[in-house]
């Protein structure tokens, strides 16, 4: 598949799945509301999926260059501390963590 074809296929898949996830429950609201499995997954899934994504994005950022381990650990700590101390303002925490990482990677 050509690169353009691949990119268009990614967009088409992204659109179809995301739209279906948003639209189908409005049509099938009643049975979904009564499903105990769906209710359990709704409660349990987000934190685990997000944790897996966090680790896998950290991992792919380290894979390219192992000397980034220390900057990644420090930037992660800065992100967590700023988020918990700074009142959970996502923009502030993400900005502080990213700035830390960019500075360390370019200075060290």
């Amino acid at each position: 598949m050509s690169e353009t074809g691949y990119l268009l296929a990614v967009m088409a898949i992204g659109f179809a799945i995301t739209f279906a996830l948003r639209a189908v429950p409005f049509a099938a609201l009643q049975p979904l509301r009564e499903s105990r499995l769906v209710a359990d997954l709704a409660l349990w899934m987000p934190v685990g999926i997000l944790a897996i994504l966090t680790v896998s994005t950290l991992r792919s950022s380290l894979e390219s260059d192992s000397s980034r381990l220390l900057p990644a650990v420090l930037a992660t700590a800065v992100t967590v501390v700023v988020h918990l101390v700074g009142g959970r303002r996502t923009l502030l925490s993400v900005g502080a963590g990213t700035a830390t990482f960019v500075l360390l990677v370019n200075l060290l």
Partner: protein
Amino acid sequence: MTELKVTSDVPAAGDLPPGATPRGEIAAGIRLSFAAGLGMFPIGIAFGVLVVQTGLPWWVAPGLSIAVFAGSVELLLVGLVVAATPLATIALTVLLVNFRHVFYAFSFPLHVVKHPLARFYSVYALIDEAYAVTAASPGTWNRWRLLAMQAAFHSYWVGGGLVGVVLASFLPATVEGLEFALCALFITLTLDACRSGKQVPSLVLAGLSLGLSLVLVPDSALFASMLGFVGLLIVRHLLAQRRRAEADDV
């Protein structure tokens, strides 16, 4: 996500309250979009810069933002696309990462929107931020206010991406380490999702699945760990069902 209830108690759904004008409601919707927009616009810029700096064509930024319109998964897709990830893995990742949207229908005030095209747009633009802002003040929505807010979010995200694309072409060299913004975003989202000790079992199961996947199938650890995690949650659900049945018997 405990308040899974349909808001059906809104009188004259979609009609304007006495004294309100479409113009005033549109302004109110845009005003309500500002707080979340403050986060969306800069992350949109980072997304646009990332697309260009990873060597993808510039139109991937607006393309993904218009086709998918879900920030975190778009940032993730950039990395997956650069690594030429198979389409099946991309589909599963989008499905699992965006699965939470299934539950927004329970309380999102779509019933105030009547026109089929407008309803289509409102569902398509049902992003986390739109859900969060409507959930914060139920019963105050009409079609003008809701659609104006969603369109404002849409313009911040697509606009931010385009600004990022332009900005990237002016930057003298690639900014090393900018992709950490995605790691940082997921760290904060995980922290926000994990506010109580009740979430610890899910974290442990996710860690277990991820650890096993990294050891057994390191090349497709993301795919395997998400699938394994959902499998473990289904087992947990079955165990919880048995406990509930036993509790009912006593």
